[in-house]
């Protein structure tokens, strides 16, 4: 079958051959720019499909229907689809808002000028963007590391120390105008994250200790540090494991009134994504980082100091990780709570992979994950599906994106002439 196709390819393209390609190929494969999107999109679609099946088959009614399959086969299929449909519509409504409510809110606004209903209706949408923001920072952190040939699995720890540092500067200093206090607080978090990332970087550059294990160790150390600081030196006076509230002069300001929580952090994240793009592709240092990532030996011959670049890359990656925590503390919680991260650091690996370690790709992937996670809360309360289903889908997406052959054989796509795998460092390096 395959050979036949190959031999056809050598002939001049004819009407006959065109018909041999299936529908998906005719839609996607024609244009080159679109080609890069096929595998990620189909991966997401397949992960959603498998996730849907898992949802359906952990539903008791569906299982009961399938045990009666031979009496009522249609009923079983119908219930399965209904369960998936129910879960995914609540996911959609949770992510974007309920369309009916939005229309109603617009009507009220046009008639009375009252914006409260409008803000209520758009709350879900705003929440999804609030969740997207830390994803963008964290995804950029991992992507920058990938481009430099390094696996930064330590974003989770970096965001904790970044959050701790910014919370400390945020609540201990008062009375400054925001134009000084806010940048100072942000800087504290960035520096803390950079420091946390630099340690595994230095160890890698100087001793060759693998950054994967060291960044993971730094995560656990950061968790312990957080526990220690929140129960002791940085605890609120009433001894709850929470830091005191950050002074309002250090807030990342909200865009609208409550209950919408979307804040300037989202636009800062977009700006930082552009900055990372500019840095990696338009500056000499960025080029050096990418060279070390692509081929360390060649980079060394070109006179680039691998040691310096490794430490720099890990520090910058850590700084972006720290920014994730800063964003949560200054934009959302206004204090540091023990469990303020829902695993952004771990999800970020999936984001960088899905976005092919490109800032634009990371932003798109973050929007996808942010809206999925935003909707998952409603899915849990309305359809009773635990939020963790999202993580299963993330794992599947990673696997599918990393092994495009699986997707291609599932959907019978043709292998492109020159395939570029996802931009990921080699395992054994330097």
């Amino acid at each position, binding site marked *: 079958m395959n050979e036949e196709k190959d031999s056809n390819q050598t002939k001049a393209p004819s009407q006959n051959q065109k018909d041999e390609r299936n529908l998906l190929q005719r839609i996607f494969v024609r244009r080159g720019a679109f080609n890069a999107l096929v595998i990620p999109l189909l991966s997401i679609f397949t992960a959603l499909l498998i996730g849907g099946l898992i949802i359906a088959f952990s539903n008791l009614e569906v299982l009961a229907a399938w045990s009666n399959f031979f009496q009522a086969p249609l009923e079983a299929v119908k219930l399965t689809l209904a369960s998936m449909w129910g879960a995914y519509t609540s996911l959609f409504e949770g992510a974007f808002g309920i369309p009916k409510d939005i229309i109603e809110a617009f009507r009220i606004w046009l008639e009375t000028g009252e914006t409260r209903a409008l803000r209520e209706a758009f709350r879900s949408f705003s929440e999804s963007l609030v969740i997207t923001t830390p994803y963008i920072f964290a995804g950029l952190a991992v992507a920058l590391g990938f481009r430099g040939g390094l696996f930064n699995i330590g974003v989770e720890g970096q965001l904790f120390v970044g959050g701790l540092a910014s919370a400390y500067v945020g609540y201990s200093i008062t009375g400054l105008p925001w134009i000084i206090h806010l940048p100072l607080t942000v800087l504290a978090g960035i520096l803390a994250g950079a420091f946390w990332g630099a340690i595994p970087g230095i160890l890698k550059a100087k001793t060759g200790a693998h950054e994967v294990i060291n960044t993971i160790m730094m995560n656990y150390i950061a968790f312990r540090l957080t526990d220690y600081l929140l129960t002791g030196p940085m605890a609120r006076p009433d001894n709850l494991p929470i830091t005191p509230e950050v002074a309002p002069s250090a807030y990342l300001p909200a865009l609208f009134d409550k209950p919408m929580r979307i804040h300037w952090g989202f636009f800062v994240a977009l700006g930082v994504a552009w900055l990372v793009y500019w840095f990696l592709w338009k500056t000499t240092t960025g080029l050096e980082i990418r060279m070390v990532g692509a081929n360390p030996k060649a980079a060394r011959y070109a006179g680039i100091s691998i040691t310096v670049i490794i430490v720099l890359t890990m520090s910058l990656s850590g700084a972006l990780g720290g920014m994730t925590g800063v964003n949560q503390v200054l934009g959302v919680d206004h204090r540091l709570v023990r469990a303020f991260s829902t695993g952004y650091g*771990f999800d970020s690996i999936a984001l960088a992979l899905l976005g092919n370690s490109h800032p634009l790709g990371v932003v798109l992937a973050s929007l996808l994950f942010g809206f999925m996670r935003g909707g998952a809360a409603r899915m849990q309360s309305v359809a009773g599906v635990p939020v963790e*289903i999202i993580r299963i889908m993330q794992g599947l997406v990673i696997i599918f994106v990393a*092994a495009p052959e699986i997707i291609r054989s599932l959907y019978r796509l043709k292998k492109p002439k020159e395939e570029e795998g996802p931009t990921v460092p080699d395992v054994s390096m330097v």
Partner: protein
Amino acid sequence: MAQAEMVIDKGRARREYMEGVGFLIIAAFILLLSRGTSGQTTTFVLTSHRAGLTISAPDLLIPTDIGLYVLAGLAALIGFWQLARGIERNNLAITVVVGLFILAFLVWATADKSLNMTGMLVSSLVRATPIALAALSGIYSERSGVVNIAIEGMMLLGAFAAVVFASVFDSLLLGVIGGILAGMLLGLLHAVLSIRYMVNQIVSGAGIIILALGLTSYLQRAVLNVFTELNQPGPAIAAVPIPGLWKIPVLGPVFFNLSPLIYLLFALLIFTHFLMNYTRWGLRVRSVGENPKAADTLGINVIRVRYISVLCSGAIAGLAGTYMSIGAAGRFNEGMTAGKGFLGLAAMIFGNWNPGCAFLGSLIFGFFDSWQEKLSLLQVGIPVDLLGMAPYIATMIVLAGFVGRSRMPAADGQPYKKEQ
């Protein structure tokens, strides 16, 4: 060639110098600890009380200051030796000095108090077991040239499956088998992805960890929390005393009155040592991990060897998870492996991909894991959470200090593509 040797010699001399100075600093620090301890006595209790059984042994009484002087003297001696002559077995020297330091710390912390040493050794071994199994799992996979960072995920799914199997069939043995099978299932996934599809092995590992984390958390909430009887495998696997031996003071409780899974770990360690070093299969695995092309030329089926190795790795990782759930905790908790799989990988690197040395590394982590609890009882004035950082900091120091000298299998992490 001569030049290269000189460079190595120079590098080595510098490292020896640094280490010698480091050892002397440790000795000085131990002396510092001895300030104000004159007249105090450290009591190490050797009597074991476990499960209502008492195996008595005389207490070990040490005058705190003299004990610390002796330990400082030993550390200084090794330091001077290192500076003057250089020590051949570098890793051993580091291990001994770190051991002396830890001992000194314990002597200091126990001044005018008492600490049950036997209990501490037992709890170190118990805590080291999942780490050692994870390290073994890593050895099987990496010796054949496949990096496996997914051990953490395999352990998690193994722990989950063991609990469910044991609860459904009401049999701990079937629970163990279930755990091993679950580990193998993820091992198969890792093998297919990294061998057949040649996916970057760390990416595949990361994907599997996230998948396992999501799957077990999801199933815990959607299934185990609804049908709580699925998370009740009964009491954890009981310790089996070895007749005649378990009553020996100190040694009995530490080595001969343990969970069958720990005996299994000992057996696996010895078995793996012989398998890797003295059998034809071991030679094949090593050659595939060092130079797959040459192995292929000699007629060894590289792909098959790697598949089998990764499946074994998954099985042992599943066993490690099983030990944590039905072997120790008696139930499944979300994310219960808590980084033990990664500690195992660090122990493997520390042990230079050898089972025995990796076990030693695991014991160090197990020890640090248990000292947090013991030291908080002694109230040494250091917050528990900071003491809890010790195993992770130790891992990093160990990796930084040893990795330069350890040698990973040459083809570790590289997919093998047979040339047509």
